């Protein structure tokens, strides 16, 4: 009996790992293909792509594609723009959407439920449906800068940031999470004299690490992958992000090696950062265990 049980467990373990490895391969091979291809001249790249050599650093290996990519497009500018826009949007979004979630869950005010329902209804609208009206709007909005009032937001960072700070999904994530926090903690803090801001800052935020991390990752993905909107609202490459930058490599003759080099440059740092965050994320869940 015991033998069979042990065997079964072993078998199950093997199966499980086999499946996981298979999934990992499916996910990882495109990445390996991209990295390897970025090191090869176009002709070899196309030849290799039909066989296993595509995944191996063999043949005429060099960093030439990277040099060429830098010459073809202002790569550093695109990366800088994306990082700036994404970073600011994620930070402001976490702040604003969590504060909104807080108000929806913990503060009692008139019209709260109606507004929440309305907000959730926006979840079903794809961005494409409001892109054009939004474009019309931002093209005519005023802005107060250091040099007085100006009209129209086109060709700027703010036009890529402000429309994406608040969104229904992020607020919804926070609302759902906050609802599960023990209400008596909030009430205890109120009786102890804490203001709403203090409750948010000292009680709710420290207990909500996991949801902040989740919301940040989701928002990051959306923002870093922005393509349609920046394409619509920016004409100058000085404001354009990485995904729009990809166009520079798809002209008359597609230089596949350079495309792969460019893609490697814009994905690998993000992946590294994500893996790092994931560790911090897991640690934060482990340490803030809310238990009764």
């Amino acid at each position, binding site marked *: 009996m015991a033998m069979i049980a042990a065997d079964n467990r072993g078998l199950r373990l093997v199966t499980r790992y086999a499946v996981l490895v298979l999934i990992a391969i499916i996910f990882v091979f495109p990445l390996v293909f991209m990295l390897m291809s970025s090191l090869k001249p176009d002709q070899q790249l196309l030849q290799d792509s039909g066989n296993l050599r595509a995944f191996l650093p063999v043949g005429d290996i060099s960093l030439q594609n990277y040099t060429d990519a830098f010459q073809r497009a202002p790569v550093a500018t695109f990366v800088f723009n994306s990082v700036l826009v994404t970073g600011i949007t994620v930070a402001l979004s976490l702040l604003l959407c969590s504060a909104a979630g807080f108000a929806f869950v913990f503060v009692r005010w008139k019209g709260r439920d109606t507004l929440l329902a309305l907000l959730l209804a926006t979840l079903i609208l794809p961005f494409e449906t409001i892109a054009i009206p939004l474009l019309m709007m931002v093209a005519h909005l005023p802005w107060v800068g250091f040099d007085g009032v100006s009209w129209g937001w086109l060709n700027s960072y703010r036009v890529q940031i402000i429309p994406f700070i608040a969104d229904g999904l992020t607020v919804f994530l926070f609302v759902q999470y906050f609802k599960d926090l*023990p209400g008596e*903690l909030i009430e*205890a803090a109120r009786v102890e004299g804490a203001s709403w801001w*203090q409750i948010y800052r000292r009680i709710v935020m420290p207990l909500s690490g996991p949801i902040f991390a989740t919301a940040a990752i989701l928002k990051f993905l959306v923002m870093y992958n922005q393509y349609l909107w920046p394409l619509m609202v920016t004409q100058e490459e000085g404001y354009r992000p990485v995904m729009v930058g990809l166009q520079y490599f798809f002209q008359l003759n597609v230089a596949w090696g350079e495309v792969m080099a460019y893609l490697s440059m814009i994905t690998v740092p993000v992946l590294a950062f994500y893996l790092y965050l994931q560790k911090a994320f897991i640690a934060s869940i482990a340490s*803030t*265990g809310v238990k009764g």
Partner: protein
Amino acid sequence: MARISLKNLKKSYGQTHVIKGVDIEIDDGEFCVFVGPSGCGKSTLLRMIAGLEDISSGELQIGERVVNDLPPAQRGVAMVFQSYAIFPHMTVRENVAFGLTISGASKAEKDAKVAEAARILQMEHLLDRRPSQLSGGQRQRVAIGRAIVRKPQVFLFDEPLSNLDAALRMDMRMEIGKLHQQLGATMIYVTHDQVEAMTLADKIVVLKDGMVMQIGAPMDLYHDPANLFVAGFLGAPSMNFLKVKVLGVNGGKVLVSNGALDPVEVSGKRALFKVGDEAILGLRPQYLAVAQGAGRLHGAVALTERLGAETVVEIALKDGNPLIAALSHDAVFGIGAQMNLDFDPDKAHLFPNEPGAGSVAKH
């Protein structure tokens, strides 16, 4: 000072009326217990006093101020919750000091006050732990520590002991009693455990369905319950209720009997009784004794529970109704043995037979 006065306080959620006009006066330094069955509105009333629930109508006064519209922080109250509600991401020290931190106290002041609270509650050795490393009783201490450290005028407790096991509950009950004497603050304590109510309270407020049934000192309520509900709610085992017929009325005295009860004259001050009325006779199990002679109540033993110092006997009366007697000595009875009981008529309570009286609280 911190007198608390509730004047015709009401609370409704939409069409659901939860508190239906409550008047209570609590003196400064008094230990007042709200007691009642589950769902009667104890917590709601307490939370209205704390400022965590809006008051639908009526007036709430703490000290000299009407506080209906003040936020909890400005009412000068501290509250201990049933779930303890201690902050899981802070150490015990940070938890206890939370109110002081919020009000911007200096580090020296915080350290001194936390140390004092920890000394009173004997939890100095716990200060640097996290809540997840504490037992239930220890968490309870932390919650109380957080409440006492700001020296509020009023303490509110919502069933603070209900998550503890029986032995610990008794310890903590005594400690809360001591704490009240030490601090001299006004305390309002919610429980549905009538033993806690009887032992701790200066004043008990018995609630039912959002209404006050009776207010008074524990012994007054015990010996002189105003109605069937209070009579049945306080005391364990709870009071026996016998349906009786009024045979005669003579001044304040009423002669009653039924199939198992020989005619007996008891005091009938709670209502006007007329000959021929049905009435309810309340007899505490503790005041029943095995009769030396013929006795007044007749039945047969149905069940006995020997507890050592006490023997609880369930008797099937001659008319078929059950009766509980708590005899203050150890005794052995055979099941089915005939039993005659006696009681002091002055210790019996006669109530009018209200509609629904038969279903009086069995707690």
